[in-house]
């Protein structure tokens, strides 16, 4: 019984190893299908996957309006203090005080692209952009303010 199991083990091991080698052998002989991209050459036709995480941006519509309510959920979710939400109080049309963002400061140099802020945002105000060429000569350029100057919150976002 032991001997039988022993040889069964040996043969199944050899079979699984050969299976793996057949797969890599197939890749070796079919090296026309390449999964890597020839980056600097194909810069114009770069084909990035949808979920690629380049940097955090805040999309604005044509009326210069964003969806951020200033709830600071992203700031709380961030594991290394990349996002700083500076809020202010605005008086709206009905004369009520309402919280809004003054600046949403984003430190790209600290960001690990973990996507937690995007997940935490209740109003989908921030998204991950597909840009990735972030090299600059001065570190201060990496500290970005995500909301455009004079931008407002969209109607109906609470």
């Amino acid at each position: 019984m032991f001997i039988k199991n022993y040889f069964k083990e040996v043969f199944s091991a050899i079979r699984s190893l050969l299976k793996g080698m057949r797969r890599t052998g197939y890749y070796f002989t079919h090296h026309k299908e390449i999964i890597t991209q020839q980056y600097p050459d194909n810069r114009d036709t770069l084909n990035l996957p949808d979920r690629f995480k380049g940097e955090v941006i805040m999309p604005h519509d044509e009326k210069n309006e964003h969806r951020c309510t200033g709830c600071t959920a992203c700031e709380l979710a961030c594991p290394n203090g990349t996002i700083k939400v500076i809020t202010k109080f605005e008086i709206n049309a009905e004369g009520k005080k309402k919280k809004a963002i003054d600046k949403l400061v984003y430190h790209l140099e600290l960001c690990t692209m973990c996507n937690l802020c995007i997940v935490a945002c209740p109003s989908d105000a921030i998204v991950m952009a597909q840009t990735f060429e972030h090299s600059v000569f001065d570190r201060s350029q990496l500290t970005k303010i995500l909301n455009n100057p004079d931008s407002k919150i969209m109607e109906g976002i609470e």
Partner: protein
Amino acid sequence: MWSLAKITNSIHEALNNQFSAGWALFFEMLMAGIAVISLFAILGLVLVLMERKVSAWMQIRLGPNRVGPKGILQSFADTLKLLVKEGLTPGGADKFLFNFAPVLAIIVAMLLMAPIAFAKDFQLWNLNIGMLYVSAISSVSVISILMAGWASNNKYSLMGAMRSGAQIVSYELSAGLAILSVVVLTGSLSLKDIILSQQNGWWIFKGHLPVLIAFVLFMIAVTAETNRAPFDLAEAESELTAGFHTEYSGMKFALFFLAEYVNVFIVCCIGATLFLGGWMPFHIGNWQQFNHIMDYIPSSIWFMGKTFFLIFLIMWFRWTFPRLRIDQLLTLEWKYLLPIGMINLLVVAAMAIGGWHF
């Protein structure tokens, strides 16, 4: 038709006409040394590029393709970089042993070149105990690894070296048993005799299943002995940064790197000699015409072709299989390879006595 043997003979005669026998021998040794060193340099360049290309294609990548046409100058650029880098010796290291270890690794590789027959009648040293010499010298390589690991004064290096010690000591046994099975069939330890005994067919075909098993055992054992994946526990990048050569940089690192590739080349030479007939052309029984065509291919090309086929096989292993754990490694050797190798050797011995092989 010219051959390597003819060239060496004419050089030998010319030198003997010009100088006394002692000086002629001296110049011949010098030329052999230069030839071995230049072979090392070429092997380093070619095998590194081959490894990178093979790995890239197996992982659906392109590999080096920027330096030179199709990236063939990549290894020259790498060598240049390693040459100009600083060879740092860490402060806490044992200076002499630390600097001596890579040299020892290269010396071992160089010594192993001596008995290998690269072509018909083209051999540095036709030793009558060639196989014993090879297995004895190759076990010295573990000393250079242990020396490097211990002298570095680094925990990663020491762990890598200790693992390598356990690994090489155990896998040498099954490599030895695999080598013995061909030696039993041939009745000689000399590499030349082993090749000549395969005149009418390579051992892998002549020896039926037992020699095939011995070949598989040999390939597994030498992959482990040269510290290559899936048995690269001595380096184990993901666990030990770089294992025994963590502290090495510049040319000292390059020597270890070169020694690894040269060792792969040498064990593949031995494998080709033992199982695939060395420089013997491929012959099929009584097909005179086919055999004649095969004879037209020079013996050196046959030898290199077989060797590079085996090197490719070892690279294929490396880029397919995941690394073993140390206990799995020793289980594989002591519970599987060694018992199978021993029983296989008995079967081969019975076959040799009974004359059941072709």
